[in-house]
């Protein structure tokens, strides 16, 4: 068959039909984007996927809105089950949260455009903790850096980091470039990261995983690492915080942990029996350096905001917070945010834990988060969080200094109104 794209890309009859416009203008636009990007991945063909997660619903400005509404008006329909990422407003509570009506209108219109194209109204950055979760080996087209890293690493589903607009093109066509992490060979680890002299007790601590991830991302950029020497059985929320942090300081799309993640039952299997390009030793001192880099404020600073839920809090994480805050109340000068999905918020409401969190003074938001929606005012006071991702992006986006700390320290600090740290586990 002659190459209809001009880019050495072999298309099936169905794909060519999309490209020439037989399946509508929106599909044609999507296929044009996809066929022009695919060769840059080194692909010579496309690959069908069974679900998509798209990031384009975060309101950045008029261009993204124009793109979405153009596709929706052109009759765009997602071809596979598609979950949208967070949007830039909490659809139920945006007024109470102080959003301007003009901003809220545009943020809502953007989300609506993707719903009109058939996306499910789940609006979360942790789709892997919802019904949209893929299975091992499933070929998917996911966006949102933390979700990509989680899907590949923890579940063993297969996706590249699909950026804005390319992800929508994949959703509308049900295709991805047949390249990168969709293929067996490129999922093998190329960098060996050895944990050396890291106390086993620290490996059981929730703060260990985001710090390890943050260091990992800065060390390996976009390569596929395998971590050796993790003497613990991390739960999914801990792995979630590792993946999110590695995809913040680097562009890690996949990370093996020998003996923990599904494609790394052994170190040798993660490496595919091939020598790694390089090996890096990570010590407690390295981890402590990364931990300190995450904080731009310090102990004793006045706290303005305490934020949990990046990535979106799971039911288990929100329940842990609810139990910890029981009987306490945040200081009057401190705003507490717990950002999660509507699904989790509804479950908390039914279980009676939502009122308990609200009694503490927490605002439990759904659909959105503090770095995609203007929920946090610039006050000069510290933003405190248990999330490496919030701690990294917070100072730039909400213009407040940030302090990364354990969930317990964040709660104590919220009550005292000052940063109170408990670093005992980090002293080795």
């Amino acid at each position, binding site marked *: 068959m002659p190459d209809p794209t001009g880019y050495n890309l072999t298309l099936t009859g169905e794909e060519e039909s999309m490209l020439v416009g037989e399946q509508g203008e929106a599909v044609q636009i999507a296929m044009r984007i996809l066929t022009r990007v695919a060769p840059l991945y080194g692909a010579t063909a496309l690959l069908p996927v069974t679900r998509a997660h798209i990031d384009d619903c975060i309101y950045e400005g008029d261009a993204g809105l124009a793109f979405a509404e153009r596709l929706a008006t052109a009759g765009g329909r997602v071809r596979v089950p598609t979950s949208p990422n967070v949007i830039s407003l909490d659809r139920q509570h945006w007024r109470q949260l102080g959003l301007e009506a003009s901003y809220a209108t545009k943020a809502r219109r953007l989300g609506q455009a993707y719903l009109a194209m058939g996306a499910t109204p789940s609006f979360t950055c942790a789709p892997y903790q919802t019904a949209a979760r893929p299975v091992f080996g499933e070929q998917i087209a996911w966006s949102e850096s933390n979700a990509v890293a989680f899907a590949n690493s923890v579940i063993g589903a297969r996706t590249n980091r*699909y950026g804005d607009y390319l992800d929508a093109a994949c959703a509308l066509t049900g295709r991805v470039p047949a390249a990168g992490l969709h293929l067996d060979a*490129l999922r093998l680890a190329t960098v060996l990261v050895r944990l050396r002299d890291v106390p086993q007790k620290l490996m059981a601590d929730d703060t260990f995983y985001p710090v390890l991830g943050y260091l990992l991302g800065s060390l390996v950029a976009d390569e596929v690492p395998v971590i050796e020497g993790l003497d613990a059985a991390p739960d999914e929320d801990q792995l979630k915080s590792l993946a999110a942090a590695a995809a913040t300081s*680097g562009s890690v799309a996949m990370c093996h942990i020998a003996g923990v993640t599904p494609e790394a039952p052994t170190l040798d299997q993660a490496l595919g029996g091939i020598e790694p390009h390089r090996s890096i030793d990570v010590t407690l001192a390295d981890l402590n350096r990364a931990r300190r880099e995450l904080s731009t404020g310090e102990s004793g600073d006045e706290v303005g905001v305490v934020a949990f839920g990046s990535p979106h809090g799971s039911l288990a994480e929100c329940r842990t917070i609810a139990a910890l805050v029981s009987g306490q109340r945040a200081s009057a000068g401190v705003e507490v945010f717990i950002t999660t999905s509507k699904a989790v918020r509804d479950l908390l409401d039914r279980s009676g834990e939502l009122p308990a969190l609200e009694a503490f003074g927490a605002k439990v938001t759904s659909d959105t988060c503090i770095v995609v929606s203007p929920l946090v005012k610039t006050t000069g006071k510290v933003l405190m969080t248990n999330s490496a991702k919030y701690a990294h992006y917070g100072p730039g986006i909400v213009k407040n200094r940030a302090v990364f700390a354990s969930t317990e320290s964040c709660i104590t600090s919220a009550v005292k109104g000052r940063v109170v740290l408990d670093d005992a586990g980090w002293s080795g």
Partner: protein
Amino acid sequence: MTPAQIVVAGGEVVRGIALVTDVPLSFWGGVDPATGTVIDQHHPLRGKLLTDRILILPSGRGSCSASGVLLEEIYKAVHQRRLSPTWLIPSSASVRFSRTSSTACGYQCSCSPRRIAATLHPAIPWPFSRTDN
């Protein structure tokens, strides 16, 4: 200030002031789309203005929304005749930002901002129509 001269696909020569960094940059969350300023407080270029600069960097990092921020810049350039940054050059001289990530800019417009997308992905013509300029 580092003067730079870039020869892009097609032979066109561009001269300008280069901003050079060996640390990857996340455009989303790292660059303020309203001003073109680097806001990533953990990045060596923090506080620098990218407008009308040739940005030379090893790769992107972090968010998948780099293309979202760049598209807003393109859109504003069309509507407000402002462009930021003018050129993005991966220092690896690779056409890709990284092995497993890519961006796609797609919006019908008719002037120089096309250069951003063309520089990010020299092999990509405009997606909406082969004859769009």
